[in-house]
């Protein structure tokens, strides 16, 4: 295949962006009327609809449907998960039996872009549904083409076959929850690219916060209208002393201890938090991801990595960018498989 210029000599990409520029973000909250929470998240041309039903009484699952409006129809609704591993660390404090369903639809498959958009849409939908979360999860992808790190790959750049790093972070806690890469990269370049992706995530986080604020303002206005109804004598709105100390402790205990990991592999994976908490509650999650498969051996490794991360309760502290190499060397974070693969380059 002829070498396509993904980055022109002037530094412009195929769609006219600069290498460090993200695509346009657009979000809408509350699209699906029947769901308890829903959101539409657009990153450039990738559009994802997420809907949350719950919490209510049955097992909880995340479902991602990739509705590809292209030649390749994704029919496979059932357990056929492809090789992509998606570790979404949803920190959800929950009451037992907390359960809810989050469902996604994404139109226009743009692989890594879809994943990021899905995660962002999920965050918005969960916030919309009022499900308590310790922090929002945002995600962004970055790649490396024509010797330039590029932020937020679009469909064409993604299909170019170059490396593609998707990162999901908890912005407030400054922790990484998802780290996935396809193809190979030398370690130092990897640091750059990952750092770029993290920057992108932070930008997305700002946008999401803005959306939530705006949405909240509207909702607050409505609530204020509702609350200020002059029903003489009923200041029950203030009197909502919701809990006593007892419930406090109970809820907190459960909250603190319910730390939820969702791991998507090519099998359904039920996540139990038994080893991680003491209250005996558990949330079952199944994560399905349907998209065109992206064959890469490293993703298989990352599957294992993700599982191990889950087991070890390891979400790393992303304190400084340059410490990534330190972290990479850290046994508890990445299995040696990955580092050895990378250093083989």
């Amino acid at each position, binding site marked *: 295949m002829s070498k396509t210029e993904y980055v022109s000599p002037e530094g412009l990409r195929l769609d006219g962006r600069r290498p460090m520029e993200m695509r346009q973000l657009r979000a809408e909250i509350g699209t*699906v009327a029947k769901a308890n929470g*829903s959101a539409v998240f657009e990153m450039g041309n990738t559009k994802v609809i997420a809907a949350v039903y719950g919490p209510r009484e049955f097992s909880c*699952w995340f479902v991602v449907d990739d509705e590809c*409006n*292209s030649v390749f129809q994704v029919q496979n609704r059932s357990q056929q998960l492809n090789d992509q591993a998606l570790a979404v660390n949803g920190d959800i404090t929950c009451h037992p039996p907390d359960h809810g369903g989050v469902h996604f639809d994404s*139109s*226009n498959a743009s692989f890594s872009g879809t994943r990021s958009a899905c995660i962002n849409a999920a965050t918005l939908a969960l916030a919309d549904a009022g499900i308590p979360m310790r922090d929002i999860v945002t995600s962004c992808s970055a790649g490396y083409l024509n010797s330039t790190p590029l932020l937020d790959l679009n469909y064409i750049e993604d299909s170019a076959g170059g490396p593609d790093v998707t990162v999901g972070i908890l912005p407030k806690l400054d922790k990484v929850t998802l780290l996935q890469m396809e193809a190979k990269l030398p370690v130092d370049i990897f640091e750059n690219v990952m750092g770029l992706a993290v920057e992108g995530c932070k930008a997305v986080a700002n946008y999401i916060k803005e959306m939530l604020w705006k949405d909240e303002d509207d909702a607050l206005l409505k609530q204020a209208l509702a609350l200020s109804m002059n029903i003489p004598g009923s200041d029950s709105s203030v009197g909502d002393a919701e809990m006593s100390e007892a419930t406090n402790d109970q809820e907190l205990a459960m909250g603190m201890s319910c730390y939820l990991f969702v791991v998507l592999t090519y099998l359904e994976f039920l996540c139990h938090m038994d080893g991680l908490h003491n209250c005996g509650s558990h949330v079952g999650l199944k994560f399905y991801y349907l998209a065109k498969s992206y064959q890469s051996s490293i993703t298989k490794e990352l599957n294992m990595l993700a599982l191990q991360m889950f087991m070890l309760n390891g979400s790393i502290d992303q304190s400084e960018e340059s410490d990534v190499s330190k972290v990479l060397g850290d046994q508890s974070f990445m299995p040696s498989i990955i580092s050895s693969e990378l250093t083989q380059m």
Partner: protein
Amino acid sequence: MVGLSVGEKHFIQGGISQDLRLDCRKRLTYRPIYVETGIIPQAHGSARVRLGATDVIASVKAELGKPNALQPDKGKIAIFVDCSPTAAPMFEGRGGEELSTELSVALERCILGGKSGAGAGIDPTSLVVVEGKVCWDLYVDGLVISSDGNLLDALAAAIKAALSNTGIPKVDVAAEMTGDEQPEVNISDEEFLQFDTSGIPVIVTLTKVGKQYIVDATSEEESQMTSAVSVSVNRKGHLINKLDSEIAAAEASEEE
């Protein structure tokens, strides 16, 4: 879909027999319809239709392909509907497949006509580029985001709107080719041909509850129906196809 108690069912039936439905519509009144086109920029055509709480999106993608050996002068059109779990959690996994298949088949029959091609809304011969060698393949996808009854009507409206929004890129064919060689085609990025949608029908579903027929049933009313008739009518007023109650019955059993 939540169930309904005996009292509520009775209430619904009573309302319909008295021409005053739950949301105070008359038997033959539609809910307000909102149509938005061009919502998916990557697709060649797309539309979103909202009918009360029912929300569907349709998108059209055109690809170049080889025509069927038996019908070298016709392009190919495929319609597929997907009931997404965002509409209702029970659609997750295989739950929505039955309904999706029913809807897809019904829509195909309405829009593409019968086996012989009679009564088709789209003329497949208009999709051919080089006879026998190159033709356009149209993939029409419907996605149900939110379901509150009357999916068939909403999907048909969405497909019609999406097709009217579709622009097929203009194709220049290289001058000479011999025999079985694949001709070279140049797909223009600039010029688009508007699709001719005058022949595409509109579907109206009549649901029978008790002894009366209602139009545009909500999912609660659909759970009460005994049968339904869907009629697709094109611009000339010709009745294209009458689909019987299977589809709507499938919807009803899902709701139940």
